[in-house]
């Protein structure tokens, strides 16, 4: 492995990490803030991807996909939330039901099983062209366009969430996840807050789906498969390195960093050639598992030390 391939792989991971970070943030909002896992994520991601690609295929401008894909995601989140809160169906099952339904809806939206659009219609095209015109190597220009677009979108998402979750409204959402009985007793409409939370997390996921579809130059009904575990791995890696008592803003930034670390790990293993890309999913599962076990491992190691000192 030369220094050059190493650097290229880091650039690639940075771009991937930034583009997938919103998914990890969406998972954070439901899993950590509402303390309820949301399995709609995979369906929503594919939905966002399919919406964006179909729109581009039919000649829409990429900016409009950045609006319509999150709206599609929000609608999916709303569906899950209504099934969960109004029909009192378990949250996990609600998510699975919506994901299942989205499969057909995606086929209907595309009108076929897979769809693509010309490269120059993608959100990355203008930046890439600019970079190439300034003399950058074409492959590097492509990688950098991912990084720049990913960073801009991520900054907007994190800023929006930072403001939302620091208002009384955001605080009431956090209270609903933290102590529903207390939230209810001070008059917070807890069902309403659960619905809002799912709308927000799925809108963000839909947006990520739209971006990743353009990075992968296409979408199909399986675009969302595996995204949940990728996002979870990124989230838990980020949480391991997050300082204690961190504010929401710091947490969100560390989740993005976790996403970058996750993709770096995967790509470093792959470029060494030890494993073929077929093993990516297994690697992801192991990474997520390792990250999930980390707090317990750390505790076990520290406990041992404390005993030794005694």
């Amino acid at each position, binding site marked *: 492995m030369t220094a050059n391939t190493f650097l290229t792989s880091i650039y690639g991971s940075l771009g991937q990490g930034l583009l997938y970070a919103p998914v990890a943030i969406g998972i954070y909002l439901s899993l950590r803030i509402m303390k309820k896992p949301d399995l709609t994520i995979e369906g929503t991601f594919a939905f966002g991807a399919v919406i964006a690609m179909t729109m581009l295929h039919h000649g829409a401008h990429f900016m409009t996909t950045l609006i319509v894909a999150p709206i599609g995601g929000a609608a999916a989140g709303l569906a899950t939330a209504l099934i969960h809160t109004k029909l009192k169906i378990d949250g996990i099952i609600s998510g699975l039901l919506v994901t299942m339904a989205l499969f057909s809806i995606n086929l209907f939206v595309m009108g076929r099983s897979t769809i693509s659009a010309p490269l120059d219609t993608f959100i990355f095209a203008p930046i890439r062209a600019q970079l190439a015109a300034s003399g950058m190597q074409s492959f590097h220009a492509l990688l950098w366009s991912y990084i720049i677009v990913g960073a801009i979108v991520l900054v907007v998402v994190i800023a929006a969430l930072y403001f939302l979750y620091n208002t*009384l409204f955001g605080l009431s959402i*956090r209270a609903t996840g933290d*102590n529903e009985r*207390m939230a209810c*007793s001070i008059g917070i409409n807890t069902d309403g807050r659960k619905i809002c939370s799912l709308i927000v997390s799925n809108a963000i996921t839909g947006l990520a789906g739209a971006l990743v579809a353009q990075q992968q130059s296409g979408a199909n009904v399986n675009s969302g498969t595996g995204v949940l575990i990728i996002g979870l791995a990124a989230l838990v890696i980020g949480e391991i390195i997050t300082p204690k008592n961190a504010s929401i803003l710091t947490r969100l930034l560390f989740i993005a960093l976790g996403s970058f670390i996750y993709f770096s790990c995967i790509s470093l293993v792959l470029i060494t050639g030890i494993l073929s890309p077929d093993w990516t999913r297994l690697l992801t599962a192991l990474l997520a598992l390792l990250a999930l076990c980390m707090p317990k491992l750390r505790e076990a190691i520290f406990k041992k030390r404390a005993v030794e000192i005694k």
Partner: protein
Amino acid sequence: MISLKNVSHVFDNGVEKNHVLKSLTLDVPEGQFVTVIGGNGAGKSTLFNVIDGNLRHTSGLITIDGKDVLRTSHSARAALIARVFQDPNTGVCPELTIAENMALAYSRGKWPLFQWAIRKKDIAFFKERLAEFDLGLENMLRKKAALLSGGQRQVVTLLMATLQKPKLLLLDEHTAALDPKIARQVMGITKKLVDEQKITTIMISHNMSDAIAYGDRLIMLNLGEIVMDVQGREKQALTPAELITKFEA
């Protein structure tokens, strides 16, 4: 003025009907502090659950300052009534800081939703209020509520409940889970907070001497009915021993 007229509540599991509250009528004038005692199944908690809307399908009429509370929305009722529970874990959000918990309680019933949650002037106000208790809580505003002890949580919960004067404060054996020393301290703080703002208060207690020592009026419930209702000198003259005999009668 809190007024209950012929309030009845029946638990019906389809097989048998259990009349937990039997045509209860009670008027609590503005600013009165009522203590409620009664054995298990007397209907004390049901009474609170009916008043604050946790239980529905209750017959009768409950009004607060003339407003029918059985037929108002959940959030409108929460703006009028504050309740402190026995379990210290129910009153605060452990993952939120003390300041955030207080900010939520401070906006109870108003919900200016998109206002910044923690504002400088609010922080100063919260600090000032917490400092009154000499528990060092004022220096913990930015700490998570999970770090508070049970007693500290109940104090913070009480303060949250009274930050904005409620029309009615319901205390549901709020010192029962604390050790005797802390319980006494929390009762002292309760009295201070209630007296300061002359809050209309109903307190359920299992502690006979507390029930006599605190409040202006004492009510004993048995099987969903008021079996004793004393105030003033008559209440002051009561002894725990007397109450226990009544209790067992």
